C-alpha cells in the first residue's frame, strides 16, 4: 500500500493490481467467527438464571419442590387407597404396619400395598392423606398467589401509569385496605362466606371445589393484593420516566399496549420474586385457617387440618403430627429459600 501513496499521493483510488482474486472471496463462517471479539450476548433473564444456578440452596429447593410435586401427582396413581377410603380394621397403624386382616391376606399370597405413613384413627391411609393435603396446600398457595398477582398487577399498573388524581384515589383505597388487620378479616370473611356461599354455588362447577376453598380464594383476592399493587405501582412510576416510554408515546402507542409491552416486562423480576414469596405466605394462611377449622371441608385433608386432627392422639401417635408438620415445613422452607435465591439473582439493587 505504501507504494500506492508514493505514485499518486492525492488519489483515493486503490490500486487493484496489488490484489489477487482470492482476496475478494467471501469469508468463510470460521473466519467470520474469528472476527467476533465480543462474547455471546447475555440477556437479563439468562444472567439471573446463571446466578441462580450458582446458588446451591436455591437449586436444592428447586429439586425438593420438583420431588414433592412429582410425589403429589404420582402417589395417587400408585397408591391404591383414596384419601377418604376407610380400610376396615386398620385404625391407628404405625408406619409400614399391617392390620391383622391384611396380614392374613398377605399370608394367603395376596399383595397388600403398605401404609407408608400408617393410618389415622378411622383407618384411612395416612400417606395418601398427607399427599392430598400437600396437594391442597400447594394448590391453594399457587392459585391464590396467581390471583393476587393478576389483581395487584392490573390495579398497580393502572394506578401507576395514569398517575395524578386517579392514582391518589386508588392509593387511598389501598391504604385503607392495607391498614386493616388482614388475618382477622380473613377469619371473619371465611366464617361468613362458609355460611352464605353454600346455596349460591350449588350445582355449579364451584361446588366441586368446596365452599371453604372458594371462600379462601375470595378472601385472598379481596385482601392480599394490596402490597402487590403498591409494589408494581412503585416500579411503574420509575420505569415510565424512561425515554423508550416517551418514544412509544410519541409514535402513538396506546396506553394498554405501552403498559403490556414496555413497562410490565421491565418489572417482571420484581413480580416473579414477590409471587414466589407470596406462595409460602398463602400456604401459611391456609394451614392456619384449616387448623382453626375454617379451611377445606371435612373428608378432604389439608396439612393444617391433618395437624389439628393429630393433636387429639398426640400422646400415643406423634407420627400423625410429624408427617403433615414436616411436609408443610419442607414446602415452605423450600419456597422461602427459592424466593430468596430468586431475589438475590434477579434484583440487581441487592447485589453487593
Amino acid at each position, binding site marked *: 500500500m505504501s507504494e500506492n501513496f508514493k505514485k499518486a499521493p492525492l488519489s483515493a483510488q486503490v490500486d487493484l493490481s496489488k490484489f489477487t482474486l482470492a482476496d475478494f472471496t467471501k469469508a468463510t463462517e470460521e473466519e467470520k467467527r474469528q472476527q467476533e471479539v465480543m462474547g455471546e450476548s447475555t440477556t437479563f433473564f439468562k444472567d439471573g438464571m446463571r446466578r441462580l444456578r450458582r446458588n446451591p440452596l436455591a437449586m436444592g429447593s428447586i429439586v425438593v419442590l420438583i420431588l414433592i410435586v412429582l410425589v403429589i401427582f404420582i402417589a395417587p396413581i400408585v397408591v391404591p387407597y383414596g384419601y377418604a377410603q376407610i380400610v376396615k380394621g386398620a385404625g391407628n397403624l404405625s408406619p409400614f404396619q399391617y392390620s391383622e386382616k391384611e396380614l392374613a391376606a398377605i399370608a394367603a399370597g395376596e399383595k397388600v400395598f403398605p401404609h407408608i405413613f400408617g393410618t389415622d384413627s378411622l383407618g384411612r391411609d395416612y400417606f395418601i392423606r398427607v399427599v392430598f393435603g400437600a396437594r391442597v396446600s400447594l394448590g391453594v398457595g399457587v392459585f391464590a398467589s396467581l390471583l393476587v398477582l393478576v389483581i395487584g398487577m392490573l390495579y398497580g399498573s393502572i394506578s401507576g401509569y395514569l398517575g395524578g388524581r386517579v392514582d391518589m384515589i386508588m392509593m387511598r383505597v389501598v391504604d385503607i385496605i392495607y391498614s386493616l388487620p388482614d388475618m382477622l378479616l380473613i377469619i371473619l370473611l371465611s366464617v361468613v362466606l362458609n355460611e*352464605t356461599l353454600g346455596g349460591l354455588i350449588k350445582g355449579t362447577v364451584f361446588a366441586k371445589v368446596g365452599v371453604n376453598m372458594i371462600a379462601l380464594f375470595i378472601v385472598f383476592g379481596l385482601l392480599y393484593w394490596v402490597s402487590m399493587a403498591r409494589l408494581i405501582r412503585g416500579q411503574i412510576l420509575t420505569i415510565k420516566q424512561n425515554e423508550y416510554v416517551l418514544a412509544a408515546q410519541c409514535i402513538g402507542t396506546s396506553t394498554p399496549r405501552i403498559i403490556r409491552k414496555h413497562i410490565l416486562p421491565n418489572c417482571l423480576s420484581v413480580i416473579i420474586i414477590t409471587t414466589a414469596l407470596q406462595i409460602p405466605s398463602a400456604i401459611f394462611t391456609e*394451614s392456619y385457617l384449616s387448623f382453626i*377449622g375454617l379451611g377445606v371441608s371435612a373428608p378432604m385433608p389439608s396439612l393444617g387440618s391433618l395437624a389439628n386432627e393429630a393433636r387429639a392422639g398426640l400422646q400415643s401417635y406423634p407420627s400423625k403430627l410429624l408427617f403433615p408438620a414436616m411436609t408443610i*415445613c419442607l414446602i415452605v422452607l423450600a419456597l422461602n429459600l427459592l424466593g430468596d435465591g430468586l431475589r438475590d439473582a434477579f434484583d440487581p439493587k441487592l447485589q453487593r
Partner: protein
Amino acid sequence: MLKYIVKRVLLAVLTVLVISMITFFAMNAIPGGPFNKEKAVNAATMAALQERYNLDKPVPVQYVLYMKNLLHGELGVSLKNGREISAIIGESFPLSAQLGIMAALFAIFFGIILGSVAALMRNQLPDRLIVFFTTLITAMPSFVIATVLLYLFCMKLGWFPAFTAGENNMVLPVIALMFSPMAYITRLTKTSMLDALNQDYIRTARAKGVPQMKVIFLHGLRNALIPVITYVGPMIAGILTGSMVVETIFNIGGLGSKFVAGITNRDYTLIMATTIFLATIMVIANLITDIVYKVVDPRIKLD
C-alpha cells in the same frame, strides 16, 4: 408533627369504623337470625325477642344502634351461653395480654441480641447458626411450633404439666408465640446493624478512638433499632392472631381460644365483638408504632 399525629389518628378512627362496618354487615349476611335455632319459639316470643335485640329494624339502623352500644361498652350477649360478651372479654383478655406482652418483650430482647451477634460475627459460625435457625423457624407455622413444644416438654420430658391452665404454665406458650417474631427481629436487626456499621459516622467515631463496644452499642445499635420499631405494630397483630392457636393448643382460657371456640360454635355475636375488639387493638398498636417511628427518626419526612 401535630398535624401528622392528628392525621394518623383520624385515619385510625376511620379504619376502626370500616372494620366495624365490614364485620357488622358481613355477619348480617349470614342467613338465619340468632334465634332461628331455638326450638318452639312462638310468634309472639319471637317478635318480643327481635324487638329486644333490635332485629326488627333495618340493617343500617341496627348498625347504628350496635355502634352506640359498643361505645357504651355493651357488646351484646354470646349466642352460645347467653353471657355478656364484655364480661367474657374482660376476664379472658388479661390472660392473652399477659401472654402476648411477655412474648413480645422476649422476642424483641432475644431478637436484638441474636441479630447484633449475627451482624458483628458476620460469616462466622455463630452467624451461620443464627441464620440457619431463623430460616428454619420462619418455615414453621405457629401451631406446629406449639404442638411440637407441647409434645416434647409436656408429654415426653414431663417438665411442664400438659392441658392445665395456670400461671406456671405460661412458659411454653410464651416460647411458642415468641419464636417467629424473634426470628423476624433477628433478621431485621442483622441487616440494619450491618447497614449502620457501614455509615460514615461509625468510621468517624472509630477514628476518634471511641472504644469498640461504645461504637457498636451507642452509635451502631441505636440507629440499627429504628427499622425494628416499625415491626412492633405488625408483630402485635401477629402475636394476637398467633395466640389464637397457641392458647387453643395449650388450653389457656384467653381471648384467642375463646375466639376460636366461638368460630367452632358459630357464635356470631362473640365473633363480631371479638373481631372489632382485636382489630381496634391492632390499629392502635400500628398508630403508636407509626408515631414513635417519626419521633425517633427525624430523617423521615413528615407528609
